[in-house]
């Protein structure tokens, strides 16, 4: 079945986009399911002239934005509150806890394990509109033109948001004591 092929091909990338957007695994699972249900229900609205992934990420992004809007009404964000991404993984440390970490770094795996929450924290510190652009470009492989389509802004605005996102991340990573020089090689996720 063609649909099953599509689901299996795009499920994980879409899930990662949603997970990084929301920072909460349980919520991301819900939104992932809602997104695919929406794909089934709105199949007749899909225009083959657009890339399927662009349409798919538009649906996923709209679900994320709607959910975030609802959640925002419910809870106020706080630096002292455990970040949702960490909380959902059973880690109740606050971002401040990571600033002073006296534990030694025995090897690269342990190092990666230690910095992962910091990277997640850095991502979640971005404003929503910058985060979504960064996620779509960096992890989902969408071009700036496609990002503009998904987010409903001009390509220049998408690029501008990306510049701000990169600059904000650079500063945040510096503050958290994380630098890009430990990367094993020059690899990036996409692009």
């Amino acid at each position: 079945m063609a649909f099953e092929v599509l689901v299996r091909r795009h499920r994980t990338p879409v899930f990662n986009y949603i997970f990084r957007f929301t920072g909460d695994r349980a919520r991301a699972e819900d939104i992932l399911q809602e997104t695919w249900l929406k794909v089934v229900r709105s199949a007749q609205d899909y225009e083959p002239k657009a890339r399927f992934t662009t349409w798919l990420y538009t649906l996923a992004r709209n679900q994320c934005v709607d959910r975030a809007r609802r959640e925002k009404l419910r809870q106020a964000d706080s630096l002292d509150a455990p970040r949702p991404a960490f909380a959902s993984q059973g880690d109740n440390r606050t971002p401040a806890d990571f600033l002073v970490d006296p534990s030694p770094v025995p090897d690269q795996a342990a190092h990666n394990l230690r910095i992962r929450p910091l990277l997640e924290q850095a991502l979640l510190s971005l404003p929503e509109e910058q985060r979504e652009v960064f996620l779509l470009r960096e992890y989902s492989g969408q071009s700036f033109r496609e990002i503009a389509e998904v987010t409903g802004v001009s390509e220049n605005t998408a690029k501008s948001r990306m510049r701000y996102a990169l600059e904000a991340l650079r500063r945040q990573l510096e503050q958290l004591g994380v630098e890009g020089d430990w990367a094993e090689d020059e690899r990036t996720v996409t692009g």
Partner: protein
Amino acid sequence: MSPTDHDQDKLLGYAYGELSSPEAKSLEAHLKNCPQCSRALEDIRKVRRTMAQLPTVPAPEAGLDSLLAYAQQAARRAQAGPAAHSHLWKWVLLPSTGLLAMVLLIVVTTRVAEETHLSLLRSVAAPKVATSSPLPQAEPSVASEIAPAAKAVESPKEKETAAKAERKPSAKMLILKAAPQAPRPSARAAAVAEHPEDFAQPASKDESGAQAGRARQKSAVAPQSAVASQESRGVAAASAPAIQRGPRDALDREIARTQDTLRTRTLASQERAGLLNHLCELLYAANRSSEADSTCDQVIRDFPGSAAADSARQLKEKNQRAPAR
């Protein structure tokens, strides 16, 4: 000097491989001579290298089967197409809805008819208890107004007038067209039967007491529907003058209806007494004296000391004194 927005956009495009080959070559040439742009590009690459360490999280398997099942179901529905839906609507839903509507209409109509009949009988019966006292002769009662119809059988002209009046939809019009004449005892039942609500108002002038008030109230709330009007006309045909000339079956039907109501309905004792009295009058009007006597006896026996019992007693005596019609 920091790169302009335009340069930064170019750098972004270059970092993400979105520049065309000539554009990329041109930028590379620029980078050799521009340390700011080179540093900016390096910053972008650093952030990318760092953020690339975030691992890919596998999507959960939960929900995948149900999603695929849902998609299959949706695909089957889509294949069936809208024609199947309209087919279903046309051949199943539409007739079902129509049938349901008809059943509802019948049930509602029956209920309304029953309620109207009952309230009509009540509005007729209630004032009769109170009006059992003799009517003053000078009072221009409905009874006196309706009496001339009795002459219809004797005068062809009046017969024509009465026939016209009977064709009229309103019983009240029939009453108003008739010229007032001296009331006759036998006309009273006819007047009551013909137009109970009109009867209740003048009759209540004659008497005082709670029963009269209640009779007015009941008369006032009695439905003035078409059904009531039909009932009223049906009864009018059986009114006293008409009793002598008109179809007896209308009177018999009214008697049967009243008996049926008394038999099947749960009534308050006062309502029951009133209806029994009404039945007495109808039975006397139909010359079924023995049944009328026993009905009056029943009222006297079952409701001793009540106004209904007094009324029944007077009615019985009056009819026993009067010569048989």
